[in-house]
């Protein structure tokens, strides 16, 4: 059933990178990027070339519209990374992916506050906007940080349900009350952006504290019909150094969470569960 390709193949065949020998790149002329604007904004960005070098500040002036987001601005800046002093610099490195505030990638400090850059509208701010990498995490480059610690903490608290295997069981489906599911749903929306960790005075590279988001996952999994089988072990894992008692009750976490997850409620519930567990450990079930 082979047919001919449509006979529209243009003649030019000097193709580059066609898994054939590479052709030398040649220079040519092209027009520059047009920039239409209704307004402009100043960005002051804290930069750092790599994990070991010193941070420094650069300032940029960009055309913008009020309804644009910080992520949109950073994307524009890649195109023409020219500072306010007219110096062309390397594009600012930053993380982003979904741009719908659900993947959790683009958390940074905006005017000092941990936020998702993709849902921060320019019109919310007056004057110059300051952007810094998310605090509390090691810097990779510019606005990119290494959040792998967060995922190590999820391992530490066993933030999973131990399935015997991902096969069919022929058992009737689980039943859960709509109310319980609605409460669990609040915690299941955590996208591990790290905003709560950045805001937490107890959380940083030099301390053991697992942080609010991790504790909320313990709360969530301990309330699942199968997850509760390992409730005791998870509680024990947050009853040591770096666990629940390291929370200083500053309540910053719940104020900065972009998903408005009731983190402090989870921590409160866990406090009661841990107390109860202590009694059980002392006196038996």
């Amino acid at each position: 059933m082979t047919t001919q390709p449509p006979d529209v193949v243009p003649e030019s065949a000097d193709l580059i990178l066609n898994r054939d020998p590479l052709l030398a790149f040649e220079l040519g002329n092209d027009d520059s990027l047009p920039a239409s604007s209704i307004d402009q904004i100043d960005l002051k960005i804290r930069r750092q070339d790599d994990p070991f070098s010193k941070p420094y500040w650069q300032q940029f002036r960009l055309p913008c519209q009020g309804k644009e987001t910080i992520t949109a601005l950073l994307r524009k800046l890649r195109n023409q990374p020219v500072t306010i002093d007219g110096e062309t610099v390397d594009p600012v490195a930053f993380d982003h992916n979904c741009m719908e505030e659900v993947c959790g990638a683009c958390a940074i400090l905006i005017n000092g506050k941990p936020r998702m850059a993709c849902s921060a509208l320019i019109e919310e701010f007056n004057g110059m906007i300051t952007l810094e990498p998310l605090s509390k995490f090691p810097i990779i480059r510019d606005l990119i940080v290494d959040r792998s610690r967060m995922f190590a903490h999820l391992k530490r608290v066993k933030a999973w349900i131990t399935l015997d295997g991902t096969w069919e069981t022929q058992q009737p489906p689980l039943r859960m009350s709509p109310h319980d599911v609605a409460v669990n749903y609040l915690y299941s929306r955590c996208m591990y952006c790290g905003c709560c960790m950045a805001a937490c005075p107890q959380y940083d590279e030099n301390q053991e504290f697992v942080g609010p988001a991790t504790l909320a996952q313990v709360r969530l999994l301990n309330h699942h019909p199968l997850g509760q089988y390992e409730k005791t072990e998870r509680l024990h894992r947050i009853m040591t150094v770096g666990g629940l008692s390291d929370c200083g009750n500053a309540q910053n976490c719940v104020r900065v969470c972009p998903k408005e997850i009731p983190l402090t409620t989870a921590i409160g519930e866990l406090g009661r569960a841990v107390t109860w567990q202590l009694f059980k450990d002392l006196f038996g079930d």
Partner: protein
Amino acid sequence: MNERRQVIVVGGGLAGQWASIRIAEAGHQVQLFSLFETLRSHSVCAQGGINAALNNKGEHDNVDQHFFDTITSGCYLANQPPVKALCDTAPELIYIFERMGVAFSRTPEGLIDQRRFGGMHHRRTCFAGASTGQQLLYSVDQQVRRLEAVQQIIKYEWWEFLAIVKDSDGRCCGIVAMNLRSLEVRAFRADAVVLASGGMGQLYAPKTTCSVNSTGAAASRVYQQGARIANAEFFQFHPTAMLGTDKTRLMSEAARGEGGRIWVPRQLNDRRDPTAIPESDRFYFLEEWFPRYGNNVPRDIASRAIWKVTRELELGINGDDRVYLDLTHLDPTFAELRLGGLLNIYRKFTGLDPLTTPMEIFPAAHYAMGGLWVDFDANDRGQLCPDSPRNHATNIPGLYACGECDYAYHGANRLGANSLLSTAFAGRLTGDAVAAYINGLEHSSDGLSPDAYDAEVRYQNRINHHFMHANGDCSPYRIHADLGELMTNNVGVVRDNGPLDSAIGQLYELEQSFARLKLGEVTPWANQSLAYARQVFDMVKLAQVVAFSARARDECRGAHYKPAFINQLSDDILTHHEAYELDQKHWQENNEQWLKTTIADYHPEGPRIRYDPIDTCLIKPEQPRDYR
């Protein structure tokens, strides 16, 4: 148990993580590669839900009906045995997700609640609030983390897949990947490789609902190494995406379902505030053109109507690519209750309230039905053989593909809420197929000579070197913007052969423009420009496949709409039996010519297009789809 072998999975979305779990469960070690932390994958963006004929709502739903809806929605273009298995397995998958901890919304009796979604007559869609994809992905992410804790799965996050490596027999025996921080290019050995690299909506950027990493670059790279791509011309455009300069964000179908009305001012250049325009000056074009369905016509029909109003009639708001999706007439309490999530997204990203100001929307590239060609194994009764190594195998031995990057389940158009299902199902099936494949392998890749690996690393390093020192005047951002605009205009909602020919020529020019590339960044650490420029190049190659495939198919089917070849149904279909018979005849004649799978093979001068037959052994193509 068989000897423990190494398998590489590229992509940490729902498909990649499902495949990883199954391969690990079979006793092998998985190296899971991802461009970022796996839970940031695009699967999280699926809002609507996941279909499974649980029949929890007393509507006599069943898997056969789900199968029928999926096949007819795809205009019979999908091979039927895998689709049948997909629908049969859906309830089982839902219950496994439930055991993994997904907070599916509940009925008052505590069962999984189900709702209706576009193109279906049954309440079949399971959902977890307004973030089903996020919940499903996190559940497998947790299982992968559990297996990671016992070294059954090793994650390579912040690594970009660049190429597969083949042994002297042409078998895939590993990959070459680049560390996105150190830019180290390194070869990894494996006995099989699974590509689960997602969709390619970025070909249409910024008019796409896809994440910035849904570039299709990985699929393009294996295509350029000989893997076939099938049905690339079939791309679903979602009619109602809110506008943005960076991306367009999905406004769910629910907005129309709950009474939202789409309109434009009747007069060109009517610059009044929309709320000041009286009813008589508003053109509710969907209601006028499709009186039976009104604003609730399916996605593709709505997209085409909006295209026609803005591009042909030039009645877009202020002459632009936008129309109103109006909710201001709805009762605010009702709208808040039924559409709260959607209203908040719009408020958050525009700062405007849809209950007082009509939303501005336009169609956006949403989902690629086509993708890497994959095999399947079925018996003579059309039942899929679930443990066969042929399932989800590409034409390169040892290379598998699953998820949005494959072509297998959606035919010419995807049924709403079938994407999460197909990606999870495909990932699981692929994991089993890979386990079967490596159990049958005589030699592991450990003993292979390093030559092929070293050669590929050298080649990839040469490309990096060229890109890093490219000092022309063409920025990769500019090339990507040109690509998105070209694809949107010429290979988008409506296609014609003239503009397609022109697009093919312009795509060659875009490829040529890489000779004048300017990277603008020479930093050897976390250089995002390098990775991006390489992706854009591979996107241009993939866009050529889409354009060639679209050019070659002279018909209208599902999402591929070429009005010059429309098989127009008679308007009086319901009253005139003869007209009905004639329509049937035309439709079947057209099927005889075009009901076949498009296959694109790589060639340096452009894709070569040919066709494969389709397995329609379970439901014979007899009835055309008709939404009037």
